[in-house]
């Protein structure tokens, strides 16, 4: 059984929490005591139905105000797959939350209210999903019960969205008409949508093919930790621990170590429980090399003829996540890229992107909370970077405020110079 991580995004009244509650409820992932607790709360509040949204609203303020404050993680499994849901709120700090929740997602569900059609929020959520290179996108057209399950409504939204999506980079797009409140096409096929020939949402989540989404070509192994037991038994053992970020590694492969550029061969690969014949993303392993080289945390092991850019100049799309400060030319920040920290200087804010119209504002002088822009950075030491499009690990970085230590920016590398 494999694992699918997916993110859900929607505006405040699109029924996102209800949908998640429905998925959990209909897949029998809700426990009786949880159900009893939300039934009591619903009853006390005078709700007409048991509000399944209460299952995902975790904090006191959220329950009291009926809103979702932060990314929440939910778990459920079917006999086919295990699922991790990152439930991201739509109303406040939408960009920051969605970027946080979706950075590791294999799939994103964007909810649309059938009565309202596409909104700024649906466009914005879709854009963020494409910016983060989430390989699979589902447009769940919800509240079909409120438009009499009318096929024309569904088709109109679908056509409009396809036109909009040509401007985005979405490799796999699926449309499903649902009613989260009543369960139509969520887990069970709806009798109200004879005209819809596709599968239910859960069926899609179970079947969507994700094995080819990871980069299996370009070997990238950021060294995380050096293991030297210094014990009598393992006196000469020297292993490089880390998580494979791309490609397939095998013993006897010729490899190069950056930044030194020295070449050697892989002697052995230790998995989490003994030696393994090969390693690929996202396995955590320990690599032993044939030759004694000076390798430390922050170095990167790759193939000799397939190396990342070694660069101190980064060009990236940056999402700014801080209320307290802005990104401007001249800003100095800490940057973490793979297993390496450095300092970064903002050389240029090339443009700020209006994520509703995709218009590029080249006169912008700063990025504030939830804004996204194209930025050039100069960093204090060489990073081993790939385009985010080819590798989500070696292509991403975070920016951290050096005074408050708060994470203030998320960067996706676009081209290296």
């Amino acid at each position, binding site marked *: 059984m494999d694992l699918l991580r997916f993110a859900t995004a929607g505006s405040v009244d699109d029924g996102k929490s209800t949908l998640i509650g429905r998925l959990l409820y209909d897949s029998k992932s809700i426990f009786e005591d949880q159900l009893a607790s939300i039934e009591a709360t619903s009853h006390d509040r005078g709700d007409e139905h048991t509000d399944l949204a209460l299952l995902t609203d975790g904090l006191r303020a959220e329950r009291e105000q009926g809103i979702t404050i932060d990314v929440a993680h939910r778990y459920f499994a079917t006999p086919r797959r295990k699922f991790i849901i990152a439930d991201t709120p739509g109303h406040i700090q939408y960009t920051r939350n969605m970027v946080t929740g979706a950075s590791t997602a294999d799939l994103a569900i964007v909810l649309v209210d059938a009565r309202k059609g596409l909104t700024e929020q649906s466009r914005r959520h879709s854009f963020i999903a494409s910016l983060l290179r989430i390989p699979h996108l589902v447009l769940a057209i919800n509240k079909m019960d409120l438009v009499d399950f009318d096929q024309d409504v569904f088709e109109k939204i679908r056509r409009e969205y396809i036109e909009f999506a040509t401007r985005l980079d979405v490799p796999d797009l699926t449309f499903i008409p649902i009613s989260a409140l009543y369960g139509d096409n969520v887990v069970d096929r709806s009798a109200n949508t004879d005209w819809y020939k596709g599968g239910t949402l859960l069926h899609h989540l179970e079947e969507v093919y994700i094995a080819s989404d990871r980069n299996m070509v370009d070997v990238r192994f950021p060294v*995380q930790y050096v293991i030297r037991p210094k014990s009598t038994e393992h006196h000469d053992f020297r292993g490089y621990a880390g998580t494979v970020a791309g490609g397939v590694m095998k013993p006897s492969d010729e490899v190069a170590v950056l930044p030194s550029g020295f070449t050697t061969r892989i002697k052995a690969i230790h998995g989490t429980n003994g030696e393994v014949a090969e390693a690929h993303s996202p396995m955590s392993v320990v690599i032993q090399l044939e030759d004694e080289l000076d390798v430390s945390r922050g170095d990167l092991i790759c193939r000799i003829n397939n190396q990342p850019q070694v660069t101190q100049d980064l060009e990236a799309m940056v999402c700014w996540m801080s209320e307290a400060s802005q990104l401007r030319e001249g800003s100095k920040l800490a940057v973490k890229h793979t297993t390496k920290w450095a300092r970064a200087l903002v050389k240029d804010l090339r443009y700020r992107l209006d994520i509703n119209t995709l218009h590029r504002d080249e006169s912008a002088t700063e990025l504030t909370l939830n804004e996204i822009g194209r930025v050039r950075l100069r960093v204090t030491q060489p990073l081993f970077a790939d385009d985010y499009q080819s590798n989500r690990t070696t292509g991403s970085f975070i920016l951290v405020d050096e005074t408050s*230590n708060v994470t203030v920016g998320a960067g996706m590398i676009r081209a290296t110079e």
Partner: protein
Amino acid sequence: MTTQLSHVSNLESEAIFIIREVAAEFERPALLFSGGKDSIVVLHLAIRAFAPARVPFPIMHIDTGHNFSEVIEFRDRMVERHGLRLVVASVQDAIDAGKAVEETGPRSSRNRLQTGVLLDAIEQHRFDALFGGARRDEEKARAKERVYSFRDEFGQWDPKGQRPELWSLYNGRYKPGEHMRVFPISNWTELDVWNYIRDAEIEVPHVYMAHEREVFMRDGMWLAVTDFLQPMENETVERRTVRFRTIGDATCTGAVESAADSLDKVIDEVAATRITERGATRADDRTSEAAMEDRKKEGYF
């Protein structure tokens, strides 16, 4: 060629990455070890993360003094077998030193006192990162907590002011006096934990398996009769076949009736159960709907 990891291997790799990241970036990490299954799994992951070297940080037990004796024996055996360093911070010592005041009455518990003892121990040992076995599926407040959970100089969690956590780029920066709680198995469920225990052949204390013991019913839960917990007048003691789904302070951890006396049977039972582990067996979480949220803000695990 297999290109998809099974979900348990995927979770294992993620947890090991997190543990190594903390060992690499923090000065003085420690692993909170209660003898419960979740902290046993985290310890096992730490052993795997650094093999064949030893675990490069100590384990810390916050000892309420109200232990199941099997659990203490188990702890000491692990320490011996894996060459670990053990730090014990004792609630009894804190009470004796007048730093903590014991609750009284038949429903008293030392659960709440653990928080102060924990925070004092962190200060005393200057720990800057503490691994815990908390999982997001356990409870609503935990569902919203980051893997790297930042704590201010009072040890407090601020749910609204959490740092964004992106990709696998964990931000472990802190100022003196602040620290990080780190939860490597955040994304595991109770069933994942049990499956891993079986697959990796991890030893767990016997109280997790069905056994006969003297129990009495209180607030809909079976509580074990121990030196620290006696029934009230209207409560009757019975011998029943039970097992524990969680192991905490013996005074507030309930047992469930169960015939599951092997790992396979426990896994079948967990897969079929319709009640959460905390809902079933933890009096400390039943105090109010937001009980966990409030305790976490104060600095609880």
